[in-house]
């Protein structure tokens, strides 16, 4: 029984951190209506930044995270401004070529990192990375708990930002109706740039929080792209609450899967669920509740 309990708790905690990454993606998808397959690569770059801060300057990963977020905000804004935004201006037969552009960006980011760090597996070990506390008979990992709490704080802050500040409301307006926002005098190109930057910063934050739980290597980005996608589709695009719900669902499903289903088919189950949601629940999990 407490195996189940422990599985659920660690899935829940993990899911909170996944949600942070997915919120970054859902923000970008909601405002720009694009499919961003480079999101995981941004997570990966964020993780490496935090890693360097730790190894070179002995900055605690939870502090390094802020440096990483700042850098990724700048990187994301630049990518949006000078690469993705260009596609708005060109007349292409297939609008889907933006998807391919993000694949290209992801390739470049991954290979640049590989060029610098090689393909070695890296990990961060701080004083408390292996620490656990006991809840009755169930052991709960300390870095996971801290990560979860920070992720929730960030999610709440983002929620406040989107609902209480002018810029936040402008972002929501643009997500809802781009054309109407333009007519209201919103500088849409500035808003999309900031949104992409914000999304990237959240990716970096999520990645940094997950750093103690994952081995770091350049290709880890694909893993996070896939997860963020599943969560975003589950949660219904462009919704922060949905992403949170989707993140927790995926975290719990994953950790149940790892405990009870064979490793090999675990990913198949995830993909099948993804397909089914895509086909039959266009609004994500929420569409079940609303009906």
């Amino acid at each position: 029984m407490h195996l189940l309990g422990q599985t659920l708790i660690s899935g829940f905690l993990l899911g909170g951190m996944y949600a942070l990454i997915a919120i970054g993606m859902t923000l970008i998808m909601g405002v720009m209506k694009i499919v961003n397959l480079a999101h995981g690569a941004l997570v990966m770059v964020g993780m490496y930044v935090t890693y360097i801060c730790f190894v070179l300057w002995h900055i605690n990963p939870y502090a390094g995270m802020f440096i990483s977020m700042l850098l990724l905000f700048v990187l994301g804004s630049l990518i949006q401004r000078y690469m993705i935004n260009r596609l708005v201006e060109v007349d292409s037969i297939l609008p889907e070529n933006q998807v391919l552009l993000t694949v290209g960006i992801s390739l470049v980011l991954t290979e640049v990192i590989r060029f610098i760090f090689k393909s070695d597996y890296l990990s961060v070990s701080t004083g408390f990375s292996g620490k656990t506390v006991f809840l009755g008979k169930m052991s709960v990992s300390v870095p996971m708990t801290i990560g979860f709490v920070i992720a929730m704080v960030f999610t709440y802050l983002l929620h406040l930002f989107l609902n209480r500040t002018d810029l936040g409301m402008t972002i929501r307006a643009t997500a809802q109706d781009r054309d109407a926002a333009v007519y209201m005098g919103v500088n849409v190109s500035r808003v999309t740039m900031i949104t992409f930057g914000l999304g990237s910063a959240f990716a970096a934050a999520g990645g940094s929080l997950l750093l103690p739980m994952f081995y770091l290597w350049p290709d880890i980005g694909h893993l996070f792209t896939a997860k963020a996608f599943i969560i975003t589709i589950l949660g219904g695009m462009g919704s922060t609450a949905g992403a949170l719900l989707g993140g927790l669902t995926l975290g719990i499903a994953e950790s149940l899967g790892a405990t009870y289903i064979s490793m090999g088919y675990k990913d198949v189950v995830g993909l099948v669920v993804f397909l089914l949601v895509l086909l039959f629940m266009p609004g994500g999990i929420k569409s079940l509740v609303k009906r």
Partner: protein
Amino acid sequence: MKKVLINITVAIVAILLPLVFRAPYHQHILITILIWAALGTAWNLLGGYAGQVSFGHAAFFGLGAYTAGILALHYNISPWWGLLLGPLVSTLISIPVGLICFRLRGPYFALAMLALGEIFRLVFINWVTFTNGAKGIMIIPKITMKLPYYYMALGLFFLSLTITGLLIKSRFGYYFISIREDQDAAESLGIPTTRYKLFAFLPSAFITGLTGAFYMNYIAFIDPNVVFSLANVSVMIILVVMLGGVATLWGPAVGAAIYILLSEVFRTRMGAASVLAFGILVCLVIMFLPNGIVGELDGLRKMALRKMNGGEKSGLLRG
């Protein structure tokens, strides 16, 4: 008349080419170009003309390859029979896949196909008893010379080109492009859009499966991570098409030639940085040649023609 002459010249050059480049390495590159040209042309029918961007064509490539491989592995039947059975399996699988995924539009279709391609890869890795899992399947080829493979690959490309060419000049071509340009308008013009998407999908999957089966026979080794690869098959096919020219008949072939030659240069000259160079190339192509080399050339030529004649020729069938 001029067009016929050009076609004949191209055919003669294609037939004589391997007699000029006799080194096995060079012939291997030529064969690889033809394989990608065939794949790209087949993808273009569905993706470029009908506008249904598949990020999962590796599924059909892998199914074709594995049909051939499994015939040899389990039933001791020559993998050459795979050239017959492989495309059939791919086509059969494409029917339910199409009927399911065509409910989705635009990037959602692309994502669903991506997920399907990955599902096939994972199943073929995990279904060890049937597929030999990640260890893959190895065969001992009967023919070791490159030349026969070259002519087979040429035949494959020719088939792909002919099927696409014939389809797009007929009612099918008009319907495919109408669906791509505006599905609602197409439907309201009496076009059964789902059925016609399937009409683009079936030949596309057929050729892709056939090429997969040929690949098994030629390379003599396959494993799921190679033939079902998202990055190295599904995405690469799209790149070849985008590089050469979306919705142009010869674009994918041009794209394949440029892409394979460039990646050979990158690989031999740059070593580890070759993938990086490739990634940068992808970004540059999409940002600056969104409709591919042949597509953009066509636009430029049209502009020049208009300036000369003051009018423009009917432009559905490009390149």
